[in-house]
């Protein structure tokens, strides 16, 4: 899922300073799973802002709404009856959701309450780690399920570099070397001969560099 962090409280409070009627939006998908922008976190942030503003004697009215998703237009429709009753929208959804609300309600300012960080998995309860960078040309078949783009600090493709010491990356002593993991996996699955196959160069043209990407399915267009 997309993993994000809530912005520091001072940033949020500074953004909300000119407003006294705020719509606080959450999302029931990725940001709920990483405990950043789901209905619980929306409730907590709304409470925090209200307490802070009560303390400053500048009370604020906050409506808390959590949509199923913020990245599909059908869900955003449900905001129509009341979105114009609020001076500003602050969204705890990911960057996609924040932008999409603004695209659909062009006269509304939508402020980000969170910093969207990476695509990742839940390693354990309360711990989320990056696994995919959306390079657009997946090589996980060749590396037996370990992504060299994401998990290698240098995104190299031809085995560990000289900085790989004791199975750890030189960048961080707690970071395993991705290529060490790949080699170990080949050994674990008895496929070392596959590791020695010469691989063609990766096609990076599908990656993010070069502008925002789009995918179309003509058969699904109405």
């Amino acid at each position, binding site marked *: 899922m997309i993993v994000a962090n809530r912005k520091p*409280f001072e940033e949020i409070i500074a953004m909300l300073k000119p407003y006294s009627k705020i719509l606080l939006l959450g999302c029931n998908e990725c940001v709920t799973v990483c405990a950043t922008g789901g209905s619980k976190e929306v409730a907590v942030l709304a409470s925090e802002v209200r*307490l802070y503003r009560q303390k400053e004697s500048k009370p604020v009215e906050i409506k808390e709404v959590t949509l199923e998703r913020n990245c599909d237009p059908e869900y955003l429709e449900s905001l129509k009856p009341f979105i114009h009753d609020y001076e500003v929208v602050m969204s705890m959804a990911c960057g996609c959701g924040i932008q999409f609300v603004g695209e659909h309600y062009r006269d509304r300012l939508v402020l980000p309450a969170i910093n969207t960080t990476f695509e990742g998995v839940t390693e354990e309860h309360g711990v989320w780690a990056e696994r995919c960078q959306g390079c657009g040309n997946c090589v996980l078949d060749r590396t037996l399920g370990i992504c060299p783009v994401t998990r290698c600090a240098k995104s190299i493709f031809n085995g560990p570099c000289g900085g790989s010491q004791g199975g750890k990356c030189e960048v961080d002593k707690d970071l395993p070397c991705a290529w060490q993991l790949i080699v170990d996996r080949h050994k674990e699955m008895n496929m070392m001969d596959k590791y020695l196959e010469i691989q063609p160069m990766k096609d990076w043209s599908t990656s993010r560099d070069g502008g925002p990407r789009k995918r179309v399915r003509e058969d699904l267009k109405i």
Partner: protein
Amino acid sequence: MRLSYPTNVKIIKVPCTGRVDIILILKAFENGADGACLVGCLEGDCHYLVGNMRARKRVEYLKHILDECGIGGERVAMYNLSSAEGQHFAEVAREMTDKIRNLGPSPAKQTAVRKI
């Protein structure tokens, strides 16, 4: 045991401190509470195994949240007692009341609206 403790302590019973979500305490502060304390079972004695451990972690997180919004993390605390420790409970209530009295009323109080 007929022990006395300060009258400003309002007790809300829960089956386990693990049931307490931080939003419940934040709502209490929004409604004008000056302080909150969670009194849970002794560590290792939780009927639900680790409910009191979860509550402790949540209280730590809540302290950080209350510091952020300017209310002050010192206004919330977690205590571990056995339900047989009546005397200790009275002491805890007194200690908490004194601490909150010294801190003064909650900064959010002046415009707090009591929601029934």
